[in-house]
């Protein structure tokens, strides 16, 4: 799927992650810019979770800005999914 809008989800609170999704030109690929309070130990793991969600939504071209404050995998997945759905304008049951 093609990202057309910018969107974000999550917070700067501890145990959360703020995820910003931005559209890029077709063929640009995935650009994931991650900062994390646990970067040294978990950068690969967090990146993998983000990629798993992008795969699920079949998104090939996107810029992801992620600012992590020690979120667990289910939180990272939830925030990426929410940001993507908002960017794709497919979220249901919200304002």
């Amino acid at each position, binding site marked *: 799927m093609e990202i057309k809008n910018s969107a974000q989800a*999550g917070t700067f609170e501890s145990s959360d992650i703020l995820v910003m999704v931005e559209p890029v030109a077709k063929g640009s690929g995935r650009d994931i810019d991650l900062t994390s309070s646990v970067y040294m130990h978990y950068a690969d793991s967090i990146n993998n979770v983000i990629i798993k969600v992008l795969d699920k939504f079949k998104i090939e071209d996107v810029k992801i800005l992620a600012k992590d404050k020690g979120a667990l995998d289910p939180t990272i997945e939830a925030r990426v999914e929410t940001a993507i759905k908002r960017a794709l304008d497919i979220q249901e049951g919200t304002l």
Partner: protein
Amino acid sequence: MAARRKRRTMLYIPGNNPAMLQQGGVYGADGLLLDLEDAVALNQKDAARILVRNMINTVDFYNCEVTVRINHLDTPFGIADLEEIVPLQPDAIRYPKTESVEDLKRLISIVEEIEKKHNIENPTMTIHAMIETALGVQNVFDIAAYSKRVDCITIGGQDLTADMNVVKTKDGNELDFARKRIVMAAKANKIDAIDTVFADVDDDEGLMIETEMIKGIGFAGKAVINPRQISTIHDVFNPTEEEIRKAVRIIREFNKNREAGIGVFAIDGKMIDAPVVARAQYIIDVAGIEI
């Protein structure tokens, strides 16, 4: 006899707060209320729904009864909440502002439709009907009796007093009739009634007094807004050593007499029959003792 589920405390956890959700099981509450309704801002409903879904799928909440408070079906969020939560079959969903049998009928029909779509043949998820309006109080006997899936009735004090246009006070006189009517409707259908929150988290004495009062009229427990309130409420609901000793004696005598084919017997000159045995068993269950 099967142990009854303990519902002394049900701790509200805001559905969009990952830190609190992931730690929910460690506070020692009997149940958790993962809240998609009032604790979540209108523009974060989608985020909370997805987060709560993921947490239920992955986090160990230990022995807590896990209940999700969804948004009412009259809001733009209710159906989407059910579509995400029902397939997970948490222990229960809490339905706010239940006012009539028609509300439940609509809810249960959508729940069953989703369960069918996901091939859930033996659903275990129950429904906690939340009474928060004068009309709900009026109809609570029908609500409690409507479906076997409703295994708990709860009272929402803040919304109910707002609906009644009265001020919620510490002595709770304004809720007296509603509380007693809700308990009686629950008891008539052999299900639990759970009391509303005590909003002042710094007033331990007030919490203890209110908990003693609601225990005295028959509530099984209370909703909690802060983990600090849990131990105070448990202290009130936990049986005393004397009560436990008496209950153990009753159950032991009951088992002995049952084997001999005797239904009604006496201890210290007092008749012991089924209701007394049931009460004794409840005390033993709450105390966490196996006989």
